[in-house]
Structures are given as C-alpha cells and as structure tokens.
C-alpha cells in the first residue's frame, strides 16, 4: 500500500468537487504524491428510452458533461499547487457504452466495487470520496457509496469529505 498514491472517487457532484479541493489543499506540498481522479461512467439504462436515438443522445450528453467536470477537477488540483505530472485522470467507461469498448469497464452494478478494484490494482494507499449525507432511509433504498467504501475497504485509508 503506497500512502502517497491517492485515489479520488469523483462523480462530478458538488460533494465530489469539495473532495477534490480538500485533497488539493492537503497534499499540494507533499513530495512524491500522486493523485488519480477516477470517474466511473454511469449511463442511463436503454430501457428508459423508447428508441436507440434518444438513448444515444442522452448518453452522449452525459459523457460530455462528465469529461468536462473531470477537466475542471484536474484544474482545481493544479491551481492548489499539485504538479500536473502528479495527476492522472481515469475515466472508466461503462461496459454498456454505445460509443466505445474498453478492456476494463464498469458493469454499472456497483460503483464501490469499481472504485475498490481500482484502489487494489493501483496500490492506492488512500481513497477520497465526497459525502452527500444521505439519510438512513436513503441509504437503505438506494445505497451510499461513501458508507459502503468505509464498510468494505480493508487495505487503505479512506477520507470522507463532507
């Protein structure tokens, strides 16, 4: 486990941007640090749309906005003082993407599994995730990424940024 390798689980939400800003402030002056911004692509189900065209259009829009957000997140880290060469952007494509195939892709069933697999395989010592602050009922119905990361990781440090 490499403590200077930091994985930020980024989903383009306000909480995720907060996590990025916090990380930048905390580690900008740390020598040999390396930060990966990981965004796991989540595309809408094909079942939500009456036809392929509308689905592809929505997917395209989502991909565009998420990639823009990733670029903004990167800029925040650089502004905080993190060297550009110390930042990696990892956009994990969905296995159901109509645009591209990838050797490593997200099945869409569990973002947490995708994050923790990336953490293990990349030997990240720290995972950073923003917390929305869901109620217990919401966590029961819809799950909570931050709660599950804390419950399920055993091999790294977790920063939850509220």
């Amino acid at each position: 486990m490499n403590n200077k390798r930091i994985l930020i689980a980024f989903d383009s939400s306000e909480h995720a941007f907060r996590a990025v800003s916090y990380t930048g402030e905390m580690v900008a002056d740390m020598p040999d640090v390396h930060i990966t911004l990981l965004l796991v692509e989540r595309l809408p189900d094909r079942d939500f749309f009456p036809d392929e065209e509308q689905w592809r259009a929505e997917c395209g829009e989502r991909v565009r906005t998420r990639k823009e957000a990733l670029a903004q997140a990167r800029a925040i880290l650089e502004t905080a003082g993190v060297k550009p060469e110390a930042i990696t952007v990892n956009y994990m494509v969905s296995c159901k993407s109509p645009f591209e195939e990838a050797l490593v892709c997200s099945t869409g069933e569990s973002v947490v599994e995708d994050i923790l697999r990336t953490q293990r395989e990349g030997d990240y010592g720290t995972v950073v995730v923003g917390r929305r602050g869901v109620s217990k009922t919401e966590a029961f119905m819809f799950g909570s990424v931050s709660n599950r990361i804390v419950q399920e990781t055993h091999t790294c440090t977790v920063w939850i940024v509220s």
Partner: protein
Amino acid sequence: MSAEVRELVRTYLPEFPIQYCKSLVTDTTQFMSIDYGHVIELGDVHYMVYKNEAERRFGLEDPKYWVKRCHELETGKRKILKLEFFETFPVQVGKFSVECYRSPDKESRILDIVRGDSRFMQGITIKDAAGRNVRVLEIVNGRRLDLTVDRIDVEHDVYFREHLPGLLRRYLEAVRAIGMLHRHGERHGDIRRDHLYVEHGTGNLCWIDFDYTFHSYEHPFGLDLFGLGNILVFLVGKANITVQSLEGMGLAERLEGRLSSDDLSIVIPNRIVNLRKIYPYVPEALNRVLMHFSNSAEVFYTTTDELLADLEPCVEALESEYGRKPE
C-alpha cells in the same frame, strides 16, 4: 366491421354477437382506440379483444388501456396482450419520489429469462405489423396473495400456527425467484403483494408484471428488497398494521407507550414492523428478520441470499414447532 373479422369470428367464436365486431388491427400504436370487438392480428394468430385490463386498488378501478384481455381465436384460449406503451412517472415510496419507467423491452427480456419457470408469469413477445412490442401473456390461474391472505378468516394466532408456515415456505421460493432475476442482472421493479399470485391447486406463488424499471443507484436491488420485506411483514402480520389501525384492532390500549419510531418501517413511516410487540408468539429470530426493515436497523439486506440465509431457518423452526402442512 371488416369482412375479415366477421369471417374469423364466424369460424372461431361463433357465439360472439356479430354486431359488436369491429375492425382488424395490425398496428397497435393507438391502443386507446382498440376495444371490445376489435381483432388484433399478430403474425398468423388473431386476438379478439373483450376488455381493457384494470387494476383495482383501494376499491378504485384504474384502467390500463395498453393491456387487453383477449380470446386467442385459433386456440380458444384466453390471453392478455400488453401493448407497447412507454411512460415515465414518479412513484411515491414512503417520503421519496422515485422516477419509474415503463419498459416493454425490459419485460420481454425477463419473459425470455423466465420461460418455463412457473414462479413467473409466462409469455412471448411478438412485433406487430408496425414493429410494436406486443407481449402475449398466459393468464395466471390463481388469486392475488393479498386477497388470499385476507380470505383466511381466522384469528391471528390460528393463522400464525396453521397457515403462515406453509405460506412462508412458498414465499421462500418467490424470494429465490427474484434472486434468480438479480443474478441475470435484472430487477422485477414493482414488487408488491398484488403482483404475487397464489396458483389454484398447487398454492405455488407466481410473480407478474415486470415492466417497471428505475434508476440504478449504488444499491441496484434495493427497491426489490424493500418490496420483499414489505410482503414478508404483511404475511407475518396477516395485514399491514399501522399505528392508526391499532385502535380498530382493539390493541391501542395494550400498546400505548410501548411503540416507538424504532418499531416502524424505515420507509413507510406509520407501518409497524416490530410485530413481536403486537403478537408475542412471533419468534425472536423471525422478528429480527422483520426488524431489518425498521428504523432501528443498522445493517440492511443487499441481496436475496442474505435475506434467505436469515429467513430459511425461521421457516424451518416454524414448521418444526407447528408441523409442516400443505397450504
């Protein structure tokens, strides 16, 4: 009235009053205008529509114009035809509004997955002449689970000893069936007690209506598991018991001051889940399973396997205590 329809009806349904025959329908796009007397043609098979399906809840009838009850003319069998209809609507689940989508293609996929599995309604998908998805469904020969339980006209303690073990034994299989869907990456999407039928004769449980879908969150099967928990609480209680209904049940005085928010459903605020407080003979182990769906739960079931691991021993214990009876 078309000559073709008249000829089909004369051949296959001679008792049908010919004056009510309408036209032959090959394009089901405008399903609102397809009604009694129309004949839908799908490939070489013809379906005489005799009514729109309606959902009955809380004493009110809610017509489903895209679902037609039909005679399959060539075989004489009664079938249900679900016509292509996409819609998006919010569904209230407790205090949450969840965006739901009606997806014919999703239901078609599941019909293919569950073909031959008697735990699910059976059907096939045929495209009409305009390419519309039409699901031709076998009618489940049974009664809704909630109506079946309502008709068991005995006191709760008698129901608990003599009927519940058998019902739960069958319910375990219904839970396993949903687990099978999940392993295929699919969700039922609308698990409720009126979407589970008790087959006449066998008493086996059969799921219907799998065309709902919703956004997948970090807990993709959460809504299905919530539905399974609701049905389980209903079965053990022989009803959905709310704080408000205690008065009518004559229990308000006995339970005054004894119930707290911890005893209530985590999603439906007034529904009592801690049934052991109402019926002390509910075993602790079974009550613990129910309490996973309460406000006091810290750990939730995320898969049907987790639910089954806890529920199966409870059913065995009930059968051991009260004897295994056919239901």
